[in-house]
């Protein structure tokens, strides 16, 4: 980042629900500080002013689901200094990657009156399947504090404090007793990337795995415990792994292993 000049930021949308880019607008208290620290040059969701590239930082939301988007992401990469993907769609293919486990043609024929107008790829894939990604911010949706952290770190030129360990560490740091152990609730916390500050366990719900696999996830072992000790049906293990991060490698393998 050149000193003195505010870094120019662009926010891009691919196949997604907009929730992650909205977390930028949801920054509320920090929003003015964000606007003060960076020049938001391209952000169609927020402003009709569209500054031309290149951009120092690109925040990319969404997955690649169409031939057009597969080309567009190449263009985004070309005009971006740092490319940071935000959210489960951009980092793992999102909920729409459920199509990857089915026949998308069969779906389009049921959903659309004239399916021949639909141009779509067979799979929904994360951005890093297509271009080099400098940093990934996980979550469905992302945590706005992590977004502010990554912008602060990038502006300052320091390492962002975004640990890739399990949700369990956040849970214990909050002083929450483990609900998997104390109540036998199937919780994905031990295999899930931290970032939500153990939101669901704090409300007595098992972790849903919104942040995708943690750094060295061992879902094989967790599933064996769920099935063996917690008496979770194999079909439910499959469903647990087949949500927002269904196409993240370790989660995909786990759901496929429990399909039958």
């Amino acid at each position, binding site marked *: 980042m050149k000193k003195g000049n505010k870094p120019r930021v662009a926010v891009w949308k691919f196949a997604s629900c907009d929730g992650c880019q909205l977390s930028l607008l949801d920054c509320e208290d920090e929003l003015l500080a964000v606007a003060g*620290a960076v020049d938001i040059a391209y952000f169609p969701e927020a402003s009709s002013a569209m500054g031309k590239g290149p951009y120092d930082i690109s925040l990319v939301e969404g997955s690649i689901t169409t031939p057009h988007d597969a080309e567009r992401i190449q263009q985004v990469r070309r005009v971006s200094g740092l490319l940071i993907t935000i959210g489960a769609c951009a980092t793992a293919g999102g909920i729409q990657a459920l199509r990857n486990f089915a026949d998308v043609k069969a779906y389009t024929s049921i959903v659309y009156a004239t399916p021949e107008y639909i141009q779509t790829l067979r799979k929904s894939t994360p951005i890093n399947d297509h271009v080099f990604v400098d940093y990934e911010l996980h979550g469905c949706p992302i945590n706005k504090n992590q977004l502010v952290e990554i912008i602060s*770190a990038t502006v*300052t030129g*320091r390492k962002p404090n975004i640990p890739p360990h*399990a949700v369990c560490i956040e849970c*214990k740091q909050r002083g929450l007793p*483990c609900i998997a*152990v104390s109540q036998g609730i199937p919780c994905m916390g*031990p295999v899930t990337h931290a970032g939500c500050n153990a939101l669901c366990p704090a409300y007595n719900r098992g972790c849903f795995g919104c942040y995708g696999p943690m*750094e060295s996830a061992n879902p094989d072992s967790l599933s064996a415990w769920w099935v063996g000790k917690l008496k979770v049906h194999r079909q439910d293990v499959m469903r647990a792994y087949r949500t927002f991060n269904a196409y993240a490698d370790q989660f995909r393998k786990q759901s496929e292993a429990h399909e039958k």
Partner: protein
Amino acid sequence: MTSPHQGAPHAPSVPSVIEPQGLEQLFAALLRRNYKLVGPTLRDGTITYEEISSPSDLPAGWTDEQQPGMYRLKTRDDNAVFGYAAGPQSWKRILYPSVLRLWQAHRKGGKVEVTVDKPAEEPRYAFIGVRACELQAIGIQDKVFLHGNYVDPNYQLRREHNFIVAVNCTAPAGTCFCASMDSGPRAKGGYDIALTEVILGTEHYFVATAATKFGTEVLGEVECRPANEKQVTAAEAAINAAAENMGRTIDTTDIRQLLNRNFENPRWETTAARCLACANCTMVCPTCFCHNIEDVSDLTGEVAERWRKWDSCFTTAFSYIHGGSVRYSPAARYRQWLTHKLSTWHDQFGTSGCVGCGRCITWCPVGIDITEEVRAIRDKDHSREEV
């Protein structure tokens, strides 16, 4: 080991007997001295240590069942207030907070002003119901944070005015093994007052001893009478029964050498296949002290902060140095944790790092059992034959 503020402990006083109502007076005596009371209470389906204000907050009539990866709250058929085993987290959470800001820096007119964080009030905690295993653990953390080359000022601040009411354990869980580690169930020291809860038919009382001047002073404000021989014997019998009823054991014979010569034991890989590397064992361990230091700056670049957060040898970042993580495989991480606890801790601090509280067994989401691991390593100790 003693609470730092009372100087040398004296020999435990002659045992006296307190009726259950006497706990009110004990609490009142501590509250009068501006202590925040922290003790066992029911929360989220567990018995945890929280801030409490009256004996009615204690988990009367409740206990726990604990097995590897399993904890369940159960009712007792009596009204015991200390009739449970070690809960989800230890006193470490109070003495060594999981997340703590150490300082802030502000840029002001070309200068940087640093403000070191200090609590607005001096923390004065009275712990109610500290078990022998936990006293041992506090003693170990005292060594780590207070008795090395560097003193941790945050830990020191919390320990300085720390009053401890120990409770000799009479209700060990299925995952307990303090008797093997020679750290319980009887409190050996490091407390101001020790209680033993006795329930015999309709009788319900506490046998109390004070081991510091301050403890004697506080106990002096509680209505008590000298314990007779029968009462002392009953208390002793309850503690002895606890020692006999440990759910688990570790054979600690030669354990340092055993682990030192078994760095290549196939068991590490077997366990790594089950280990989630989730770090729960280290978070709940009352002696684990590792933390990370995070420096953060805000968006304006005008404010910087340094935070201390609990960390764990089970993360890859923990051993990350130039070029990558030293302990990349979960097998290496599990081996590091277990061998540090039971072997190299002796080299580093002169004691075992394990006190036998069993938390790492109960709170492992897949029930990995340190006692079983040691047994398995001993069983496959082929290197002994080669030597």
